[in-house]
Every structure is written in structure tokens, then in C-alpha cells.
């Protein structure tokens, strides 16, 4: 019995270790056709918050937030994605000016920082900066690092700072020489086939009813 329990526990632990571990990441998804961006995960303070890791920060903290920017438009388009900072909200200026923020492409950390300044500023992101040209399914990752100085004073306890970023896309038709996007997900159009099935059945039923009525009419005509 004890052996069986040990085996079960071992299996459970093995199962747990096999589960994927998801880091809290921000995500910007463009869905195509000049539709809206979707910003995740959001927070109790803002529905479009991309900084889940920057909550309850303490003096001396150096925290990194990964943000994935993804083109989820269909295969016929490619997009150029840009970003810029609008800076801190007026009432957050003083608080955010106490800490440093850096932004860089995480895929190639060798490049210079796209942004390296106090968190309230717009600095190098005042103008639009192109993050790249993304084909369908393509994504670019950003590493955002927040550095909180140890000298941050007691008066900044329990503060909230708001920082606005804008993302812009330009959509272009894909060209023959463009790389093929990887096959991802299931392309089976359940909705389309279901609609076709239901409409076919409905047509079949209507035809049956008509045929029946026609027969009845004919039979009535014969009897009378």
C-alpha cells in the first residue's frame, strides 16, 4: 500500500514537472484588417496594462518584463509595426521620474537600447520606432527593465504610475518573394462547414415538403 502511494506521488510530481511554466508576459496582438490591437494581460488599474511584473516594486529592485508583439493578421498581408512613448500621465510624473526604464529587442540583445531614460520620459521613443516587418504569425520580443534606486524615499510607498505607449501598424499585401508563414493551428473551418450542413439540410427538408404537397395536390385532383 505504501509502495503504491509512493508510486502515485512520484507520478503526480512527474506530471507537475511536465506542465509548462508560463512567465507573466505582456502581449500586443494585431488581428488584421486595420482592426484593433489587443493588449494583454491588463490589470486592475488599466485594461491595456503590459507590465504585470512591475507591481509592488521596492527600492533596489531591477525587474524585467518581456513583451511580445505579434502579427495575427491573415497570410495575405505583412505589417510594419512601430511603437512610441507618450510618457507618464501628469500625476505620475514625479513618481516615475525616480526610476529608470530600458527597452530593447530581446531577440538580439547586442543592439543598443531603443529606450534608456527615466521612466516618465519619452526620450528615444518620442518618435515612432519601427520594431520590424512581420509576416502572418510573426512576432518580435521586447525586454523592458525597470530599475528602482535604493534611495527611493518613503513618500513613494503605495504609489501608482501610469505610462502610455502607442503601437502603429502599416499593412501591406504579401508579395510572391515573401517567406511562407509557418503552418500553425487548425485551419478546419468548423463554422463554414456547419452552416453549409444546416442550410443543405434545410433545403432538403423544404424540397421534401414541397414534393409532398405537390403529390397531395395531384392526388386530390385525381379524386375530384
Amino acid at each position, binding site marked *: 500500500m505504501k509502495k503504491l502511494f509512493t508510486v502515485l506521488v512520484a507520478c503526480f510530481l512527474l506530471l507537475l514537472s511536465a506542465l509548462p511554466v508560463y512567465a507573466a508576459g505582456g502581449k*500586443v496582438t*494585431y488581428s488584421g*484588417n*486595420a*482592426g*484593433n*490591437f489587443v*493588449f494583454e494581460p491588463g*490589470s486592475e*488599474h*488599466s485594461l*491595456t*496594462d*503590459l*507590465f504585470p511584473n*512591475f*507591481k*509592488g*516594486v*521596492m*527600492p*533596489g*529592485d531591477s525587474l524585467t518584463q518581456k513583451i511580445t508583439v505579434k502579427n495575427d493578421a491573415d497570410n495575405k*498581408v505583412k505589417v510594419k509595426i512601430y511603437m512610441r512613448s*507618450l510618457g507618464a500621465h501628469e500625476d505620475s510624473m514625479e*513618481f*516615475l521620474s525616480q*526610476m529608470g526604464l530600458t527597452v530593447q529587442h530581446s531577440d538580439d540583445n547586442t543592439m543598443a537600447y531603443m529606450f534608456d531614460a527615466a*521612466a516618465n520620459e519619452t526620450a528615444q521613443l518620442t518618435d515612432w520606432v519601427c520594431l520590424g516587418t512581420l509576416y502572418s504569425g510573426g512576432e518580435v520580443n521586447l525586454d523592458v527593465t*525597470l530599475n*528602482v534606486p*535604493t534611495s*527611493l524615499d518613503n513618500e*513613494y*510607498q*503605495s*504609489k*501608482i*504610475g*501610469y*505610462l*502610455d*505607449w*502607442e*503601437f*502603429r*501598424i*502599416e*499593412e*501591406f*499585401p504579401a508579395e510572391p518573394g515573401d517567406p511562407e508563414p509557418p503552418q500553425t493551428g487548425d485551419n478546419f473551418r468548423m463554422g463554414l462547414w456547419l452552416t453549409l450542413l444546416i442550410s443543405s439540410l434545410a433545403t432538403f427538408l423544404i424540397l421534401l415538403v414541397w414534393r409532398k404537397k405537390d403529390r397531395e395536390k395531384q392526388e386530390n385532383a385525381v379524386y375530384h
Partner: protein
Amino acid sequence: MGKIKIKLFVVSLVAAMMTFISTSTLAYYSTVGKATNVVTSGNIRFVIHETTDQGKEFPKEGVYIVPGDIVSKKVSIESDCEHPFYLRVKMVYGIDSQELSSEECFKLNIDEEHWVLHDGWYYYTDIVDPGETTPDVFSHVEIVGSKVDNSHLGKTLTLTVKAQAVQSENNPISDGNVYTASGWPKEAEK
């Protein structure tokens, strides 16, 4: 007939131009989205508990005492935040509005295993984790009979517990001495 041909030509031209323009527009969809990102700072908060041996809250109005009394008063500190911290406490004694030294009237049974005296403050030797309550700083207060005489009749003796905390994250200490942590409020702020 000629006029009709010209009209047809113009209409065709306009149609062709419109097609060109609309095709150009379709090729360059553009849209902008705004994300409002939020940074929040943490805090250090705690609650001082003062209870009696029976676990009841120590009466705010105080208790009547006579020389030689041993009053049950248990003092502990509970973390009320999401961050660990270092802690120190100080007892301030008074008679009416005048401050006294501890030796004058009171004697406390300080738990010296967990609280170490340095420079007038008792430092908790460990980190107070979120939600944790410290062991009692002391549990009894003795009113020293030899120090309390008739001159104290009708007066109010006070014992005030002051506590200060500083974050333990990103705040290394030397040789396990909590008083070496950075960020303790300056003496003037006590």
C-alpha cells in the same frame, strides 16, 4: 455620336482612376492602439498587538497599579504587507507628560533570544515575512516597588512601544546584525 464617345471616355477614365485610388488605399491599412502601462510601488506595514495573558486586548484606558504589581502585557508585531522586513522596537516610559528612563519605575521581561538591544532599540533578530507575527517582545511589566513611592500617587505612568521597519529585500546586513541594514529612519524621526 462624337459627344457620346467623349462622355464614355471621361466616365471610363474616372472609373479607372477611382479603381487605382481605392486599390492604393487598400494596400496601406494603418491603425494605432494605445497601451496604458502601470507601475505600482510596494509598502511596509505592520500592526502592534498588545494583549493580556488571557489573550484579550490590553485596555486602552490603562490599568490601576500599586507598587510591586506585575501587569500582564504581551507585545508582538504582525506584518500587514506583501514584503518582508527588518524590525526594531523601543519602549518609551513616562509619568504624566514627562519622559522617564526605564530604570525608574518599570521592569520588563524582554525576550532577549529574539530581540537584541543596540543603541536604545531592540532589533528583531530575524526577518518578518509577509503575514507573520513576531514572538512577544515582552509579556509582563513589573512596577518596581522600590522606585514608586507616595510621590507617584494619582499620577499616570505610561509605557509606549514604538516600532520601525525597513525592507529586507535588496538590503544586505553585516554579520547577521539587523541594525546594519540600510534605511532605518534617522534619530530625529523616531
